[in-house]
């Protein structure tokens, strides 16, 4: 099992071979890491990108549903992620906006409340930040920035504290109260990007570009992982949701660090993978977006997506 050339990494436990392309292996050799390379070799490219592909399909599929109307005249969904009407019957509204409306002192019509309730129930039950990783179009931008950052081997940067987003969420509601309007929606890059794709951009490209370069050059995972108040809102919604990632084969972990490198919220992995402050292998932190990228890139198949009731370990 152990190779004499690799240094011991986990104390008294039997040594494990660290894949040379992994984050840890590359760091030892002083080259740019290719996280997930080992998984591709072991599982094949398709299986090593399963959740990523499903997620991109979901993100682009949602976008396509909104775009076939204005582009081709097939009106399946009208509106945008802020509020929409599907097939002329199903109203869906972003509960983040309804929360802001309440803060601004406005009571919306039944359609918006019903639509907001449906969306709220979905994310409360299944997983709050599923919105971030499976629906939100800004994720495409910040994932691209994170990918480029890894490929260019950019290190360092200064990200604000991860709980800044909860402060932001508080202030979004406070300025809604103070101005009596949906003040955040003037600048909210999330709704602005989606609306721009469907209704036209104006200068909104500047904000999207700003987020890309902020994530790429200044703060790794800066927007989605540290600042976005909408993500914070959905994280709060999903505190008791069902779908969770479990590190149920954590005994097979070879400390290659690839999951940490690709995870948009790397702080959520440690408690489950390394039993820090908890016994079970479930990632219960609400900041986890359940994107499943850790499942993909792990050559040892440590992770899988399961429910919060499944605390078993294999």
């Amino acid at each position, binding site marked *: 099992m152990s190779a004499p050339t690799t240094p011991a990494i986990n104390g008294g436990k039997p040594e494990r071979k660290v894949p040379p392309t992994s984050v840890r292996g590359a760091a030892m050799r002083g080259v740019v890491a290719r996280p997930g390379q080992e998984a591709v070799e072991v599982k094949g490219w398709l299986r090593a990108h399963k959740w990523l592909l499903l997620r991109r399909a979901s993100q682009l599929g949602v976008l396509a549903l909104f775009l076939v109307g204005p582009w081709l005249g097939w009106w399946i969904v009208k509106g*945008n992620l802020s509020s929409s009407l599907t097939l002329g019957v199903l109203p869906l509204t972003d509960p983040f906006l309804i929360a802001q409306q309440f803060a601004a002192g406005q009571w919306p*019509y039944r359609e918006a409340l019903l639509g907001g309730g449906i969306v709220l129930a979905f994310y409360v039950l299944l997983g709050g930040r599923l919105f971030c990783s499976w629906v939100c179009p800004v994720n495409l931008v910040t994932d691209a920035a994170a990918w480029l950052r890894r490929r260019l081997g950019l290190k360092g940067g200064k990200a604000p504290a991860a709980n800044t987003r909860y402060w932001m969420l508080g202030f979004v509601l406070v300025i809604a109260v103070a101005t*009596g*309007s949906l003040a955040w929606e003037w600048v909210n890059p999330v709704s602005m990007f989606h609306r*721009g794709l469907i209704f*036209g951009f104006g200068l909104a490209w500047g904000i999207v570009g700003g987020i890309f370069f902020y994530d790429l050059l200044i703060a790794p995972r800066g927007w989605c992982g540290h600042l976005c108040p909408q993500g914070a809102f959905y994280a709060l919604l999903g505190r008791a949701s069902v779908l969770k990632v479990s590190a149920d084969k954590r005994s097979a972990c070879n400390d290659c660090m690839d999951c940490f490198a690709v995870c948009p919220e790397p702080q959520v992995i440690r408690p489950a993978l390394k039993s820090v402050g908890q016994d079970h292998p479930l990632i219960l932190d609400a900041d986890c977006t359940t994107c499943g990228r850790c499942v993909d890139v792990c050559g040892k198949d440590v992770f899988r997506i399961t429910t919060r009731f499944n605390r078993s370990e294999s």
Partner: protein
Amino acid sequence: MSKQLDKTERSGTSVPPSRRRFLKESAGVAGGAGLLALGVGMYAKQASALPATAIRPPGALPEAEFLAACVRCGLCVRDCPYNTLKLAELGDSVATGTPYFEARKIPCEMCEDIPCVVACPTGALDRALTDIEQSRMGLAVLIDQENCLNFLGLRCDVCYRVCPVIDKAITLERMHNPRSDRHAMLLPTVHSEHCTGCGKCEQACVLPGESAIKVLPIKLAQGSKAEHYLRGWEEKEAAGQSLIGDQIELPVRGLEDKAYGDTRVRPGEAPSRVPDYVPAAPGGLDSGWKP
């Protein structure tokens, strides 16, 4: 025992720095986020001043409430059959993502079923509006009397003809043309009681660039009513009689055989001497003219 002591001692020394760090970090974060929020709030306040040429859809709540209610979903835009409405983009001077239209480009066609209002899920467009003629998107104002063709004495009348509430919202008021002194001017006149602010007049105005008649926000277009000033003729109508009794009408000397206000001069009635009044240069309303 000594171990326990050690522990408490260690925790006793280790807690304050972490608390200090926590306080420092949260203060920094709160300060930064507060600054950002302040910026956003100020930007929002500043941008909430709607430019005069941007008109909200029918049934829109007053601007301040509208900005609290509209979620910028664009469902009203989608259900507008004439592509009148559009969502403001970042950089337009209208609040980002909110619906508006520019009357000079595409005016509101005043659909009877008001689909934009029906589509709004939040009530930013008030469903209490069921009769489109009751909507008040703005108020048309004949703003340029120097270039309006009717004011020049021509019979353009286009704004009057296209008005969906013709003869109520816009009427043609006949006036003497002092420049030619023998023609009439038919002046398009807007009545706020009936004007919906649809903007068809503004769009149709034949002037090549800017129109002479424009739909403006009511706040810009209209003064507030002088409540302290009682209009005698209205009081008279309400009371059924004059409140100060009948007035004596004094005869006008030298004009006994003429109707009141008739200033026409019959042949042979020419004034004995040429008046020293010289008409001003022609064009537009002559300020020297008196009825």
